[in-house]
């Protein structure tokens, strides 16, 4: 409870701009509800007054009409400002959460399940939004409105009647919501966990559908779906039973309280200490008061859900990034730069064995270096460490003489471009995907980069050319086209070092050769680091390194080619 509460306070700090609209919405809601009570009281008292004498009917109608119109205006303002709070809070929380998640990348993407991350980023934010937009104001008005209304009623009728009504209101607002509180909290927690699990399952169903239907795994897959959904149904039914019990208690207490006020008021009427008009007023105010607190138990459930959502969101976004920028970053010297690894050792978080063991290598500025090794040997890890996905456990990696951990990450990645095996293509047009590397690139520049990557001819063959939208994960491009698009993207940056991780693995030998020659011609002084499993790629390299089980040794191209098994 305290963690939820502090998490909500924490989230409130990130949506400060909704504070005043929220205050406005709350005040309008209070006025609206007090007026609703006043309208019913006026009507009831008006009817009772008919007993003692003539009632001015037009005056009664005008009074009611004025009160109603004022109430409608306040309700409009309450609703509009409430929606303003809702959409604004949603927007701010999303942007905030995204802005806090990306600095942890790439390291955090390797551990967190993105489907689950999505549930957290959108679903949990939705829940917190509900708290700001639809929970705070009703909870405050549920406390304030009965106090105003019952104080007034106590003053105009009898304090005892007001205390009776207050006891009932208190039971509904504060006592009944505690019924099954812990059970409900458990159910909602397990529900949230299961929803996350199902979101992950749904993501895999879509993305892995080719494998599922290809292997005829439909039936077991659907069985898993049924299992997951029936678990969720079970939770929901348990929650439903508790909600039903609370709603019934609320209604019973409401009606009984009205009857008690009526009974006590009736006795006073018989004794002659209370007029019929006062009795009517007391009964009407008591009944109307409950509508302000009626929804309180669902509001408290929302509060609880919002609390656990805020708690989860806080956990995700407050994870410190694996690497951070130095306070006074050094600057890599301009012009061609070399790359040096000196005694680098690295173990992935949670792994048992070292991925890179005491690796040292020197690549001169402007050289073409080739790093060869089996899959899983650690060669991609070398590239990741160079780009500072993680910090090394021991040893120093430097670019242009500057250790990478003394340079700002963005500066490092501006100078060292990486074409990775798993380059992500966004669900946008080809041109937009290219412009991720440089948003202000002209179409001539895009074309030039694509010509170097031997992709331009393919793109103009597409019906929409550069405006062709590539699907999720760039599914609609062939593997080779995807790799070349990734290369073109890297070419749009001003990098002096190109790390090319298996960048021609899906290309035929002709195309791969053309790409390689065009790249060198386009970037004469760039340092090119090719990571490959193909020994023949070592031909013509200035230096060749072999990686095996995380250890690096310098070899000659001849030595590598000699080991090609026939």
């Amino acid at each position, binding site marked *: 409870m305290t963690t939820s509460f502090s998490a909500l306070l924490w989230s409130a700090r990130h949506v400060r701009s909704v504070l005043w609209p929220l205050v406005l919405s709350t005040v309008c809601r209070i006025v609206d509800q007090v007026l609703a009570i006043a309208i019913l009281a006026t009507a009831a008292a008006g009817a009772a007054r008919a007993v003692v004498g003539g009632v001015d009917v037009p005056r009664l109608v005008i009074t009611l009409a004025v009160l109603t119109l004022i109430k409608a205006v306040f309700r409009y303002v309450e609703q509009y400002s409430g929606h303003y709070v809702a959409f604004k809070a949603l927007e701010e929380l999303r942007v905030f959460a995204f802005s806090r998640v990306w600095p942890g990348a790439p390291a955090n993407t390797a551990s967190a399940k993105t489907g689950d991350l999505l549930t957290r980023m959108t679903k949990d934010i939705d829940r917190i939004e509900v708290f700001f937009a639809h929970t705070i104001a009703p909870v405050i008005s549920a406390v304030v409105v009965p106090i105003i209304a019952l104080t007034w009623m106590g003053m105009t009728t009898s304090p005892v009647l007001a205390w009776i009504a207050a006891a009932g209101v208190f039971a509904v607002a504060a006592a009944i919501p505690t019924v099954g509180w812990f059970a409900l909290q458990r159910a909602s927690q397990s529900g949230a966990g299961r929803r996350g699990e199902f979101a992950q399952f749904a993501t895999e169903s879509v993305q892995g559908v080719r494998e599922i239907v290809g292997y005829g795994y439909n039936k077991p897959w659907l069985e898993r779906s049924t299992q997951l959904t029936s678990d969720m149904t079970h939770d929901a039914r348990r929650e439903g039973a508790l909600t039903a019990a609370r709603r019934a208690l609320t209604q019973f207490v409401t009606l009984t309280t009205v009857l008690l006020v009526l009974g006590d008021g009736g006795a006073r009427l018989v004794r002659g200490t209370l007029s019929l008009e006062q009795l009517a007023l007391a009964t009407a105010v008591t009944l109307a008061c409950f509508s302000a607190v009626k929804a309180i138990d669902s509001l408290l459930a929302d509060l609880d859900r919002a609390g656990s959502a805020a708690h989860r969101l806080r956990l995700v976004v407050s994870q410190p990034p694996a690497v951070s920028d130095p306070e006074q970053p050094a600057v890599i010297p301009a012009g061609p730069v070399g790359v040096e690894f000196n005694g680098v050792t690295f173990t992935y978080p949670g792994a048992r064995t070292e991925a890179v063991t005491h690796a040292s290598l020197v690549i001169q500025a402007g050289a073409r270096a080739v790093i060869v090794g089996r899959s899983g040997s650690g060669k991609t890890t070398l590239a990741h460490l160079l780009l500072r996905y993680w910090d090394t456990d021991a040893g120093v990696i430097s670019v242009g003489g500057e250790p990478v951990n003394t340079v700002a990450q963005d500066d490092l990645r501006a100078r060292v471009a990486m074409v990775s095996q798993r380059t992500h293509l966004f669900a946008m047009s080809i041109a937009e995907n290219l412009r*991720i590397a440089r948003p202000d690139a002209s179409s001539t520049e895009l074309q030039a980069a694509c010509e170097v990557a031997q992709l331009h001819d393919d793109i103009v063959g597409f019906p929409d050319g550069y405006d062709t939208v590539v699907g999720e994960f760039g599914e609609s491009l062939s593997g080779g086209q995807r790799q070349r698009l990734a290369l073109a993207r890297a070419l749009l940056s001003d990098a002096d070092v190109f790390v090319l991780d298996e960048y021609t693995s899906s290309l035929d030998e002709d195309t791969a050769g053309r790409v390689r020659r065009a790249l060198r011609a386009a970037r004469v002084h760039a340092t090119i680091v090719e990571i490959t499993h193909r020994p023949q790629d070592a031909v013509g390299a200035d230096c060749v390194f072999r990686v095996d089980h995380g250890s690096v040794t310098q070899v000659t191209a001849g030595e590598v080619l000699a080991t090609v098994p026939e």
Partner: protein
Amino acid sequence: MPASNASSPHRRAGENTPAKHPGQRPNSQGHTPSGGGHPGGRPGGHGGGKPPTVDPAILYTPQLRTTTRLSAIILTAASVVTALLFVVAGAVIDGYLVKSGATSEIASFGTLSDTNQAPLASLVAGIGPGFGGWLAIALAALAASLTAVGVWVTTAGTAREEAQVRTRIVSHILDVGPVSRASDRSGAIVASATDGAERVAAYRMGFVGPSLASVVSPVLVVVVIALFIDWVTALILLVLIPVIPAAIYGFQKAFRQVSGRSRAQRQALAADYLDALQGLTTLRLMRAARWMQERLAAAGERNRRSVMRLLAVNQVVILVTDAVFFLVMVSALAVLAVVRLQDGIITAGQALALVLLATVLLEPLAKVGSFFYVGLGGRATERGIARFLGTRAPVTGGSSPSLRRDPRSRTEILDDGEDLAPKSRISADDTRPPLLELRNVVCGYGELRVLNGANLTIHQGEHVALTGHSGSGKSTIARIVERSIAPEGGDLLFAGQDATELTLPAARAFSAVVQQTTYLFSGTVRDNLHVAAPDATDDDMWVALEAAHLAADIRDMPGGLDAAVGERGMTLSGGQAQRLSIARALLTDAPLIVLDEPTSQVDLASERAIIAAIDGIVASTDRTVLSISHRASALRTVDRVLNLRDGILTEVTR
């Protein structure tokens, strides 16, 4: 490109008209939908145009109607009982008034006059405060119990419908099978199965049922007034009652536009956030994370502003209904109570009961307001899900559950069991039909024609390599063979039988495809292998892993077969993921194994080892292998090499 390019210059005149594909719609040949404007869109003639609108009823269980009605009836009953309680309360007030020491004139207002014509008014009129009080408390208990049952029916029904919608969506994903997700992005589909399911279930059960109750219960409350208080008042109220459903209808109509737009924008935004999260690494490397953040923020802000502008106008509906309701209902009841009381028709208690009944009559208004959010998403989300459920699969299966003949049985049994080299198994007088045959296959994506009458014949036990330039359409052949796309023309034969005669599961069981980029499910190595063979034992798995040269790696992992592979195989290297995929294919008993560039991520040593292992499998079992590769160098141990160029296949002489 003109639609007539089915007859491309690369095809001889006699082959111009490809044989009509039995499983296809007649107009699908050479017909390209104008909408399929990019490579990787659905193959021509399929999925073009809008899918038909679907009845939303298909989302839900057949019990939905019954449950909705039941909850409406129970909630209505609760309202009626509450109304009766107020009638009794009125009688109790009258009792007090009569007993009070007030003037006899005032006390007479507590006595029912003869002019009152309400049929059942006399039934409660004489009730004393004592008995009346207990009766009222009993009614309160009854109303509360009815509410409890109503809430339980509604929440249980919501849970049931939610589960149903989720199950429908997942099973539809599998029914449609692999399609390009360029238009229906997976983020949006996932949102439908999660948020969407919750929203529509809450809408159907929590909105439709109570809406129904809010239309019916005021009418019944008016009936209670007619029976117990005054039928004239009831008649006047009855005229005013239609205002309630009319206002609700106006509400729904006014918000449909907003809800549709805001839903589409919200869902697109959710998909964009997923895309951005999955591409975080790339964004970081491109120094574009902040740019993406600003882009998403700008899109969100645009979305928010347009919704707020629409709301500013639409919320006037709230203002109007609120004013109309309070004014009409409360004023009408107050005036009627005063007038009828002054006329001596009703008692003071009845007059007060009328005013208090305003709260029961006004309850629908309060509900309409709080249902705003449920209604906002409900209908629009429902349409979106129905549209997704209405999408058709790009391929349709036939009715045969299995091949007519076992592709691996021979007309003659080779008696020399020891000599199992691939070549020796294809005897010249083997009269069996080829295991796989493609005849004049034409296929493309949108306007892009990839295959122009491709012919391919593979015999049982062969290892055939398919080469060609990057982007020449090699993977399209794999997709045709695995029946995830249907060619626009030509025939696909499995062991001499038209593949379209087979049911999709049967056709897909014919081949095991190792994809260019493998999808690994989160879970363990064992979970991933179970996808291919749910009944495989540990021993079977180790044999397959051994053959895929992955056994040693898995043994080194903590947990062995139970080692977690992580999302999209992130904890495995590209080569390991690929070898796991090969092991998966080897675990099936598919007669044909298609390797679609499986070694593009694997180093040469393990590539050769894998190919050697596959050759071993070809030799020792009945497997036939089709290797797709742009690199001829890796393919020295195959029986034949075919080259795909300009949409046609030619044999490479070596």
